[in-house]
Structures are given as C-alpha cells and as structure tokens.
C-alpha cells in the first residue's frame, strides 16, 4: 500500500485543477464539498500508506517512490520522488486530518462570500503544496512545496484584498518569508556543494559517513535555521504571523496555526543527522531562539484584545516551544507537541472563527462576553481547547508540553525556567480570553466609544447651529436699530418745519384783516399747520417706538446666543463625562449608561440591538467537536508512564537515527516536573480568574504595553523599514538603475556604435574592394616571403 503515496498530494492537486476549471460553475456550496472530498481522499490515502508502513519491519520503514526525473542535469538529477517514512507520514496524517476538518468548516464559514470557490481553490493548492513539502525526497521538491505554501499563504491572507490592510498584511508575510527562503536556498546550495546531491537519503548517508564536515554541517544548520525562523515565525522573523490574522479564520487555523508554520520545525527534524553533526552552540542557538520567542510572544498575547491576535501570538509562542525542543534534541516531544498543538490550536482558531461568525464579524474581546449561553457548542469546545493549551491534565497539551519541559530541565535548567514562565503566561492569557469571550456580562450590545462620540457630536452640532442662528438674529436686530435711529432726525426736522409753518401762518393771520376774504383762507392754513405739527409729532413717536422695539429684539437675540453657548458648554462637558468605555475590561465591567442619549446613538448601535449572537451551522460545529475530541485524547500518543506507552517515540525511531537526546531524568524528577507544571498552570488560571472574574485586581496591572516586547519590536521594525530602510532600498534601486543597468546596456551600445562606424567601410564600390583585396594580398605576400627569406 506504500505505492499509494503519490495519491496523497495528487488528491488536493486534482481538487485544485477541478475547481480552477469548473469552480465558478459549481458555485456554493458544491465547490466547497469538492475541495473537502479531495482532502478527505488525501486523508484516506495517508491512512492507507500509514498501515502499509506499519506492516513493514521497523528498519524497513523507509520507502522512496520516484515518479519521474524532474531536473536531469548531467551527473546531478532531481526526481519527483516521495520519501515515505514515519516522520513524513506522521506529518501527513495530521495535515490531511486537520485539513479535512478545516475544509468542512470553511463551507460554513465562507457562506455567502462572493469568491467562495476561489477560497477552496487556494485551500486545495495549499494542501497539495504542504504535502509536497513534507513528502518530497529531496530539498528542491521540499523547496517547491515551501514556496507553494508561501504563495498560498500570501493569497489567502489577502483574500479580502479590497481592504488595503489585508493586502499589505499579505505582502508583509510574503516579504518576511522571502528572507527565510533565501536561507533555504543557500542551505540547499551548501548541501549540494558538500555532498553532491540534495536527496535526503544521500544527506543522511553523507552525515553519518563523515562526508560532511562539522563546519559545513553547522553552516547548513544555521542557514536552515534562518529558513525555519521565517516559515515558523520565530525571532527575528515572527512579525508577519500576527498580521496574517487578516485572512479568513479557517486560513489562520489551517495555515497559520496547524500546518504551514510547523514546516520550519519539520525541516529541522528532517535534517536531524546534520543537526547532530553540527557544533553544539548552533543547537543551543535554536533552543534559545525558541525559548525567547516563546516568552516574548506569550507576553505580547497578554495585552491583545483581538480574539485572533491572542491566538496568533500564542501560536508564535508554542512554535517557540517546538524550536526549543528541536534545539535540545527532543525531536519526539517536538513532534508530539506539534501534533497536539495542531489539534488544539486549530480548535481554538476555529472556535474563535465561530465566535466571530456568531457576533457579526466583531473581533474585539472587549465587546464579547457571556457568549456561552448563545453558542454552547463553540463555548464547550473552546473550553476544551483552553484546558489543552493551558496544560491541564489529562488534556493533550499537558502531556506534550510537559515532555518538552522535562527534556529542557535535563539539558539546561535555564531553558526549563523560561519554558515554565511561558507555560504560566500561556495559561494566564488563555484563561483571560475564555473569560472575556464566553463569560461575564454580554458586552456585545454596549455602545462603543465612537458611537457615544457620534451621539454627542449630533447634539453639539445642533447647539453650534443655534449659536450661529442667534448670531445672525443679532446682526439683523442691529441693522433694524440703526435704521430706526436713522429715521429719527428726519422726523424731528419735519416737526421743526411744521413749527415754522405754524409761526408763519399765525403771523399772517394776525397781520391780516379779519374781515377780508383772505382771512378765512389764512385761518385754514393755520389749522393745517397745527395739524401738520401733531402729525409730525406722531411720526416721531412711532419712530421712537420702533427703535425701542428693535433694541428689545436685539436683547432677545443676545440672550439666545448666550443660552446656546452655555448649552454647548454643557454638552462639551457631558461628552467629556460620558460613560467611559473601558480599554481594559473584566467579566463584570459595567455597561456605559447611555439612557440619556440612547436615541441619538448611530444606526450601527441600533442594528446591534436587533441582532442576536447565534450558534454556527453544523458544518462549523462538527469540526469543532471532532477537534475537541482529539484535543482530549491526543495525549495518548505518547504517555510517559511506561516504555510501552511511548507509541510516537517508537514510531519515529526509524527517522531519527538515534540522534535524539537521551533523557537522564529519573522517574521522581519527571513527576516533580509535572507537578510544578500543573502548579504553574493552576496558579496562572487562578490569577486570571482573580483579575478577570472576581475583580480582585485591576487588569491594567498586567495589560502593560511595555511588557509586549514583541509588539514593540514589530513597531521598531516597521519604523526602520519605513524610514532608513526605504532610503537604503531606494539607494540600491538607484545603484541598480544607474550603475548595473548602464554597465549591462553599455556593452550592446558600444557594439552598436562600433558597427555603425564600421558600416561606412562598405562603400559599394567594387573597385575599392578590389584595391583592399590586392593591397592585403600584397601585404600577406610580403610577410610570407620575409619569413621564407629570413
């Protein structure tokens, strides 16, 4: 059944091709089912090969299936060949197993996405690449898979590329990984120059037979370490993994937790004969890189509020554990933890995806809480994942993590201490995450800071508009007053004039003879003048009344402005004192009291009140249940009690060539180690409960950004790369354009210039050609004859 090995990558590759050709026509959900079926087929093929391998005698468990020669180049040739041995099949089993579950989950998660079939296209291509990486019988084929998974990782991180942030997260992952790939290529070249072949079988023979010197082996180890730090997100290249969470959650689970990120560790374990040969300090370097990455990432995970970012830093931290294990030669515990981690971290990621799906794409844990009532299956399985990663017996994570810690103690107690602190932090931040997400008050409905701001912004804008209107009224009132006052002199003048008329009329009446006819006329004029005065006096009074009225209006407007301004001041103060949405929350953080301004809250708030978090469909919960089952029992792969229970160790023996570290710790020591680990986990869980559940201490005390070295490192890298780094690259680009390109283009330009100059020799005159010919012949004759004569 070993011959079925080629089927393992062939299934997802077929899926990729089929979805490529007819994926759009299949649409949702058929394309998803096709992809899932192909992964399932791959899993069945792996199981078949596994049983074929079990049937072989132990030393014979090393089978190479060569399909065809890929690169024939003289004495050097590279085959498309699959190396089937316990190590590669152990990897394939959990890659295809977890992969199938995640494919199934994705059918539910990607429901309604416009690029549904494209998602499964990428997922199947990823699976095929990953299986090539694991099964390849030479470094070049592994590199093909290595680049394939990198490309798929890029495509899937920036799957929702319309959002600029997602696209740049994909770029960041790809570029960071290129640095590691550079190490892989140089390492491959070094292997080739030292051994003359890049087949693993030849490398193993070369390392064991002494064809490889210690110096070369160290060089290969260091270069492959660089490659592994890229893919497996270790210091100094881990910065891409937290950003990779921009992709859809199944991608985070499959690629950035369970499979692809373990390929660096796999590569190092695969090359264990080379590692064994190299200088001890290079192995210590691997162990310390792992230990410090584990610690730094765990510290960063404590301050994260994004549910996926916590898990991302947690993944970096757990991969650090794997590196530490590889560095101390604990290959079996490394594989053990890799497998259990694949189960429980995939479980946790899928659980967080289910939560995100249920609460309408909310990722901030500060806005979750109390979700266990609404999504009981997700909560239950997530809690199993939490217990597994926190190292609570008898869940899987306890056994594998404890194994690594025992080996670390055996080799270097300092490594053990760092590992223990990491374990403690792991239990702490995971407990925090579980409490914040599933327990306590449901903070989902709470108003967000920006929503409260928006509510006040509306009112403040209204008050500001009132002030503006009052100001306009004032201006109008002022104009009215000015106009009315302007009328007053005219009226007074009219009175003066009327009075003068009256004087004239009185004098005229007195002067005239009352008996004459003109007298009556004059008396009439006098009456008229008297009336004119009273009329003018009336007009003046009216004008004065108008002035008084306008002044009153002015006063009203002034009052309105003062009122509006004080209202605005009050609102500003109210906004400052508005119910604070806390940046650090616990299970019982009170909701901001928005009763006073509820009606002003924006639509997003109202829409949220209508929406109710819900449990995910069965395609999503079934993988959760299956993975939680595995997270409980996977510890049984390698129970420490008796030698007979070391199933994984026996299984991997043929691939490790007895290069692994032999444990010297006594049974008692092991039990003490386990007890200390359990105690540490318990203390951390209790501390997290005290802070986030019981409210015994304020979360600010631990959520200190200064502790998040990993985040600060990321920022520092970004600022260097954005500033001097960019200048450096611009300089390199300038050098390339001005010096390299000119040198390259200069040669043909020189040739072209010479040719155009020598073209003029071809005059077309046959006689001049003849002359040249004859002169040349003469010259030749002279030379020849001279040599004859002399």
């Amino acid at each position, binding site marked *: 059944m070993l011959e079925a090995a080629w089927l393992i990558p062939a299934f997802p590759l077929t899926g990729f091709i089929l979805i490529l050709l007819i994926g759009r026509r299949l649409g949702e959900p058929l394309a998803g089912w096709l992809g899932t079926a192909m992964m399932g087929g791959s899993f069945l093929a792996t199981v078949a090969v596994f049983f074929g391998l079990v049937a072989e005698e132990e030393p014979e468990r090393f089978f190479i299936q060569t399909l065809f020669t890929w690169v024939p180049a003289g004495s050097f040739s590279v085959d498309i060949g699959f190396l089937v041995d316990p190590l590669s099949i152990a990897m394939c089993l959990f890659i295809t197993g977890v992969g199938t579950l995640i494919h199934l989950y994705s059918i539910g998660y990607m429901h309604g996405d416009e690029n549904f079939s494209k998602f499964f296209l990428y997922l199947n291509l990823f699976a095929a690449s990953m299986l090539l990486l694991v099964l390849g019988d030479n470094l070049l084929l592994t590199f093909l898979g290595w680049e394939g998974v990198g490309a798929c990782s890029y495509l899937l991180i920036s799957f929702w590329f319309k959002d600029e942030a997602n696209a740049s997260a994909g770029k960041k992952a790809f570029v960071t990984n290129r640095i590691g790939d550079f190490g892989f290529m140089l390492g491959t070249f070094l292997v080739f120059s030292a051994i003359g072949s890049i087949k693993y079988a030849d490398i193993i023979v070369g390392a064991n037979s002494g064809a490889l010197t210690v110096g070369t082996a160290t060089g290969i180890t260091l270069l492959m370490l660089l490659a592994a730090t890229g893919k497996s997100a270790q210091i100094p290249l881990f910065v891409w993994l937290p950003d990779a969470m921009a992709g859809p959650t199944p991608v985070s689970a499959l690629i950035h937790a369970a499979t692809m990120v373990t390929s660096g560790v796999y590569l190092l374990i695969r090359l264990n004969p080379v590692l064994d040969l190299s200088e001890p300090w290079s192995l210590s370097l691997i162990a310390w890189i792992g230990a410090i990455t584990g610690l730094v990432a765990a510290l960063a995970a404590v301050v994260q509020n994004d549910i996926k970012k916590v898990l991302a830093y947690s993944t970096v931290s757990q991969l650090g554990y794997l590196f530490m294990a590889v560095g101390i030669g604990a290959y079996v515990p490394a594989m053990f933890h890799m497998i259990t981690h694949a189960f429980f971290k995939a479980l946790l990621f899928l659980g967080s995806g289910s939560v995100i799906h249920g609460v309408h794409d909310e990722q901030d844990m500060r806005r979750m809480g109390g979700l266990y009532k609404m999504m009981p299956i997700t909560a239950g399985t997530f809690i199993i994942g939490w217990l597994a990663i926190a190292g609570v017996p008898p869940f899987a994570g306890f056994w594998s993590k404890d194994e690594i810690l025992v080996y670390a103690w055996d080799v270097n107690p300092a490594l053990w201490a760092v590992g223990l602190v990491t374990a403690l932090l792991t239990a702490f931040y995971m407990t925090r995450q579980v409490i914040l997400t599933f327990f306590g008050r449901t903070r989902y409905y709470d108003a967000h800071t920006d929503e409260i701001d928006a509510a006040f912004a509306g009112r403040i804008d209204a008050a500001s508009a009132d002030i503006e209107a009052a100001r306009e009224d004032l201006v109008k009132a002022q104009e009215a007053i000015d106009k009315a006052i302007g009328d007053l002199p005219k009226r007074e003048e009219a009175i003066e004039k009327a009075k003068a008329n009256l004087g004239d009329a009185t004098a005229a009446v007195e002067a005239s003879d009352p008996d004459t006819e003109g007298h009556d006329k004059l008396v009439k004029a006098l009456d008229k003048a008297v009336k004119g005065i009273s009329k003018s006096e009336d007009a003046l009074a009216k004008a004065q009344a108008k002035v008084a009225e306008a002044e009153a209006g002015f006063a009203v407007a002034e009052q309105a402005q003062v009122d509006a301004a004080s209202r605005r001041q009050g609102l500003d103060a109210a906004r400052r004192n508005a119910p604070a949405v806390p940046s650090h929350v616990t299970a019982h953080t009170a909701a901001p009291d928005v009763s006073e301004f509820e009606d002003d809250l924006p639509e997003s708030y109202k829409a949220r009140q209508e929406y109710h978090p819900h449990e995910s469909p069965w395609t999503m919960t079934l993988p959760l249940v299956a993975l939680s089952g595995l997270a409980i029992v996977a510890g049984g792969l390698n129970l420490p009690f008796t030698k007979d229970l070391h199933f994984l160790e026996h299984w991997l023996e043929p691939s490790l060539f007895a290069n692994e570290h032999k444990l010297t710790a006594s049974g008692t020591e092991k039990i003490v180690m386990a007890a200390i680990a359990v105690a540490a986990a318990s203390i951390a869980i209790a501390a997290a409960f005290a802070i986030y559940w019981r409210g015994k201490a304020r979360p600010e005390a631990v959520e200190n950004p200064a502790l998040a070295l990993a985040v600060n490192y990321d920022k520092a890298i970004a600022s260097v790369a954005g500033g001097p780094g960019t200048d450096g690259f611009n300089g390199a680009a300038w050098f390339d354009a001005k010096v390299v390109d000119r040198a390259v283009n200069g040669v043909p330009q020189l040739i072209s210039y010479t040719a155009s100059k*020598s*073209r*003029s*020799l*071809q*005059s*077309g*005159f*046959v*006689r001049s050609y*003849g*002359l040249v010919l*004859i002169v040349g012949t003469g010259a030749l004759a002279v030379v020849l004859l001279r040599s004859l004569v002399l």
Partner: protein
Amino acid sequence: MEVTETWYLVLSAVLFSLGAFGLMTRRNPLVMFMCVELMLNAVNISFVAFSSALDDLAGQSAVFFVLVVAAAEVVVGLSIVVALLRRQPDATADEFVEMRG
C-alpha cells in the same frame, strides 16, 4: 635563348598586374570581369610553371580546380553582368552601390 620557368613566372606576374590594374581602373563591368579572368589565368600559368619545374602534379591539379571554379564563376558573374547592363545599358560598376553600408 632557352625559355625557362622564369619566363613563365614573369609572364604570369605581368598578366596578373595587368589584370589587377585593369580591375581597379576600368569601370565597365564586363571589362572588370575580364580582368578578374586575366588574374585567375595568370595564377594558373604560375601553377603550371611551378608544377613542371618541381615535377609535382599537385600544381596542375590545382589548375583544374581553378578552371572549374572560374567556369562556374563565369556562368554566375556573366549572367549578373548581363542582367545589370540590360537594365541600364551604359552603366558603370560604380553606379551599383545599393548595398552600401
């Protein structure tokens, strides 16, 4: 006065020089062509002279090759010259400079 090889060589040199001189001074394509033939045959004479003097048949067999090549050359060359002159009856060789670089 005995006729020795020298005479033949001198004749050959004279004919060759005449041919070379003619090739460079004349402009009529046909005459230039004849000058080339003259040079070829001058060389043939020297070949035969040396062959007879050194009693080596290699020289004479070389002459055969030259004659064969010359015959082929005449076929091609004359047809080109005829074709040229038919197009432009009073043409000189200097007028055909279309292939100038």
